[in-house]
């Protein structure tokens, strides 16, 4: 009797949480969809002209900026994260890994405003002085995001590599393969789905990150011309304009949210599918 009650209460809580999420999604779509239809999907997605007070709602420069910033973060962050993961999982003595892995995971908990601040103080002047441009740039945003996603990708990849059965390694070494050949040809192959999942989760985090990006990306409303151009991402745009937006403008910000929502959904669903395949293997 008592257990039934607890069970029912838990069910209720769970469903209200899920319900709240659904409501939020419905709300975003309800607020955002009409303006997309009003200006036309094509115009909305492919025009670079964003002047919401004058009735122009083209988000393409922000989509491109978000994608470039994310891709840049991946190009810088993924090799670093994999190098860390392979070193910690395969080469570092157990004692070192036991200390370093939680330390790296701790980095994921640092608030993004701190990363952004470090970026403004350290990274932006470096880029301005040595590479030119205003310093606040696509490159700065990519580097900061690369550092921010490093812990996520590293930590999940370490788990994936450590989950590879020791017998594979033993079999490979007993055939005369070197440690590095074993890593490259067997261990990374066996850990592949886990590593890909880690990368996709890192991507989702990068494309959704707002605060740090606003602080270092420069926020100019233009298609990026080079890595040194200041750019405005989808997330930055919502955060920067929501304070004074009203009417169609407000609706267009919700529509920007829909675009982000779709991106994140695609990332997460693919991560889920790949993880499932991994389990099955």
């Amino acid at each position, binding site marked *: 009797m008592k257990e039934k009650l607890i069970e029912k209460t838990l069910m209720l809580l769970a469903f209200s949480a899920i319900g709240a999420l659904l409501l939020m999604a419905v709300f975003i779509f309800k607020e955002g969809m009409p303006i997309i239809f009003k200006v036309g999907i094509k115009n909305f997605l492919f025009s670079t002209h964003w002047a919401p007070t004058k009735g122009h709602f083209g988000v393409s420069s922000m989509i491109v900026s978000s994608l470039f910033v994310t891709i840049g973060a991946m190009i810088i962050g993924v090799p670093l994260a994999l190098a860390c993961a392979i070193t910690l999982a395969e080469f570092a003595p157990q004692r070192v890994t036991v200390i370093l892995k939680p330390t790296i995971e701790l980095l994921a908990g640092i608030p993004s405003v701190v990363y952004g601040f470090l970026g403004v103080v350290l990274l932006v002047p470096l880029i301005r002085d040595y590479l030119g441009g205003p310093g606040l740039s696509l490159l700065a945003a990519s580097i900061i995001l690369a550092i921010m996603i490093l812990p996520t990708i590293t930590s999940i990849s370490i788990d994936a590599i450590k989950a590879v*059965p020791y*017998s*594979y390694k*033993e*079999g*490979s*070494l*007993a*055939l*005369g*393969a*070197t440690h590095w*050949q074993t890593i490259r*040809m*067997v261990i990374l*192959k*066996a850990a592949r789905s886990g590593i890909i999942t880690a990368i996709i989760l890192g991507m989702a985090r990068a494309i959704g990150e707002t605060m740090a990006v606003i602080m270092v990306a420069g926020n100019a409303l233009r298609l990026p011309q080079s890595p040194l151009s200041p750019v405005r991402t989808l997330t930055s745009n919502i955060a920067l304009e929501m304070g004074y937006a009203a009417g169609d403008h407000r609706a267009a910000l919700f529509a920007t949210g829909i675009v982000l929502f779709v991106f994140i959904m695609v990332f997460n669903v693919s991560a889920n599918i790949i993880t499932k395949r991994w389990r099955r*293997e």
Partner: protein
Amino acid sequence: MSKVIVENLNLFYGDFHCLKNNTLSIKERKITALIGPSGCGKSTLLRCLNRMNDLIEGVRITGRALIDGKDIYSRDINLIQLRKEVGMVFQKPNPFPLSVYDNVAYGPRVHGLYKTSKDAMEAVVAKSLSAVGLWEELKDRLDVSALNLALEQQQRLCIARLLAVEPSILLMDEPCSALDPFATLNIEELFLNLKEKYTIVIVTHNMQQAARVSDYTGFFLLGELIEFGNTKTLFVNPQNKLTEDYITGRFG
């Protein structure tokens, strides 16, 4: 002809004296079985012969192990070459999570063999799979994952994987213990075929198996080689009381 000679070999795991002054010689192109109760050091001795114990921290070895007259613990030995020469099959079949083809081609690839000729590689894969009796069943399914094979097929594949790098010695650590009795008999038949070309050392806790397949047998107890000799003699007329107790099932 002795292929492998072990002389006064001692092995310590830290403070634990695991192998005690083992001396034995293993004849070329014969099957030598190592029997004894579990924990007596059979696997450890086997792993001395391809230096897999090097991977374990805190292992110390004294004495000599010669293969073709060369001490494999001497300084100038090439570990990679040694392990190519001395293949190992494990208790639980451990094919890589790759296709059947890539499993067999793995050894040649890591040793940089047949790099320039796809035909030569395919021929080696075919030859190795034929040698373990898998070619007919798998020749049309070379690209399926090795993990989808039946256990017996997996163990055969693991043997084929070794043959592809042309070793001369095969070390087998309880190769049938994960298999059903029928598959075990099939694999034993394979050993008898492989004997024509390879020197085989097989660890087994199954005395019938030792009696069925081996030419020579060594009986271990607590790290000591109690008795070593012709399999028939050892089983029919054991010299040592301990051997007799073990093979008649009075302990262990």
